């Protein structure tokens, strides 16, 4: 496949990583085996792009390690993989809870770069009040953020979900590329992006501020907001 990153973009990303990466980061990518049952003409075209993006990113810093599992059901179980492709960003402040289902391309390419930097630094730039309120959450929260690569408002929602996940291991921050997973999109009636679904019950659309997002998590947990 032809390279996706142009030469000057590569230089830009390499510099970004050089200046900002601290601790090692592992990208863990789950794909299907060549000719595997879960491949169809539809998702196959996306998988090769996802693999290429992950490879190109990890080649730009020696602090990023890429591990690819193809059709490894055991590992998929360990990571709680729900669909293919799945890409996890692992570091010291994550615990298999910062996830991309489908291609991190288009506007989401910047989300993955920013996620890698946050995970490597082991910190997010959420403000202190929000951080504290996120850390206080003591039950499991699953946040699905549906996006399309052409949506410029979506990275804000993806980043907020992922940053919350980095601050609290009980939070699972999940990006879903809506075009690639039509069954999920149908199940959650996605006709506009970004669409956010929390614990399968609280839903909202749009790139909202961090405190409004957090409010919805509290709402899904049935807690009156106290922060």
């Amino acid at each position: 496949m032809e390279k996706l990153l142009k030469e000057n973009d590569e230089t830009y990303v390499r510099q970004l990583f050089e200046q900002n990466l601290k601790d090692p980061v592992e990208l863990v990518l789950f794909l299907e085996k060549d000719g595997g049952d879960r491949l169809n003409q539809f998702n196959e075209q996306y998988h090769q792009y996802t693999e290429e993006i992950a490879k190109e990113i990890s080649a730009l810093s020696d602090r990023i390690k890429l591990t690819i599992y193809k059709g490894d059901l055991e590992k998929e179980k360990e990571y709680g993989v729900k669909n293919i492709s799945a890409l996890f960003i692992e570091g010291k402040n994550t615990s298999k809870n910062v996830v991309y289902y489908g291609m991190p391309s288009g506007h989401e390419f910047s989300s993955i770069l920013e996620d890698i930097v946050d995970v490597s630094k082991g910190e997010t730039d959420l403000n202190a009040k929000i951080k504290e309120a996120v850390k206080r959450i003591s039950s499991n929260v699953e946040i699905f953020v549906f996006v399309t690569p052409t949506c410029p408002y979506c990275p804000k929602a993806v980043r907020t979900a992922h940053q919350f996940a980095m601050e609290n291991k009980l939070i699972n921050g999940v990006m879903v590329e809506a075009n690639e997973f039509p069954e999920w999109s149908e199940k959650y009636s996605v006709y506009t992006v970004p669409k956010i679904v929390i614990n399968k019950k609280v839903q909202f659309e749009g790139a909202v501020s961090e405190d409004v997002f957090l409010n919805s998590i509290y709402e899904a947990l049935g807690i009156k907001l106290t922060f």
Partner: protein
Amino acid sequence: MNEFNLSFRSDVPREKDFDKGVLYDIAIIGAGPGGLTAAIYAGRSRLNTIVLEKVSLGGLIIVSDWVENFPGFPDGISGEELGERFRKQAEKFVGKIILNEVMNIRKENNQFYLNTEKGEIRAKSVILSTGSEPVKLPVPEEEKFRGKGISYCATCDAAFFKDKTVCVIGGGDTALHEAIYLSKFARRVILLHRRSELRAAKMLQEELFANPKVELKLNSIPVNVLGDKKVEEIVIENVQTHQKEALQVDGIFGAIGEKPNIDLVKNLVELTEKGFIKTDVNKETSLKGLFAVGDVTDAPLKQVVTACADGAIAVTSVEQYIKNLER
């Protein structure tokens, strides 16, 4: 843009990128064409400048598929790339643009205090370029079906309407752009407009008329949207005959105008009846030291090129304002 493109929103903005102790010369709120042009001029004037953006760099223009009326690009340019170029040029002169939402603004003793998601920022002047957002459709079911078939961003949501029927409402440039873009995905596009003639640029109209997937419903307004869990039908009324008609559609895209984003300043400055910020020829508002540019203002034309011009004028005015302060 193509779904396989890789796009860069910004450098990774960090909290320490702005110094909380500093008194900035200008705080620019909003990184669309107007704000980013102001940043270019401010940086070149060596004014200590901070640019803040809440969601997405480049402004509303980045959801335009193709821009053909911005001078310097004889073959046209995608809105996405144009926004990206504005950003790069601005960052060259003022450094990184900070993704940070401003919650409120107050002015005390000739200083502006911006309360933001990531802390307080002080500045001698403010250039507000917060732009506008689409006006919601005036049907009683708007809220019920927003996100369930009613949308205001074809670039974002067109993919959900592949081989479906969609209705675009409006008769200006935006509506025609949306209709033409959607025709690449949808099976059928109905353009609904309340007047007997479209308002959009004649060239766009010619392109629309030549598109076999698009059909026009003129002199018509939407009155109701029907459906169980999502949009299934739109009821329209002919404004001349008052006859109603139900059309089966899967999606409805609203493009009936823009509403200015004035929440930050609505209690600080004078507004027009329609809620746009009143500015003078120097782009100053009724509050000294607060300037406004682009779609949020009462300018008679709202285009990328006019927003850019506003940004350049505002910076020149800010320089004079700061000089007067120090006198």
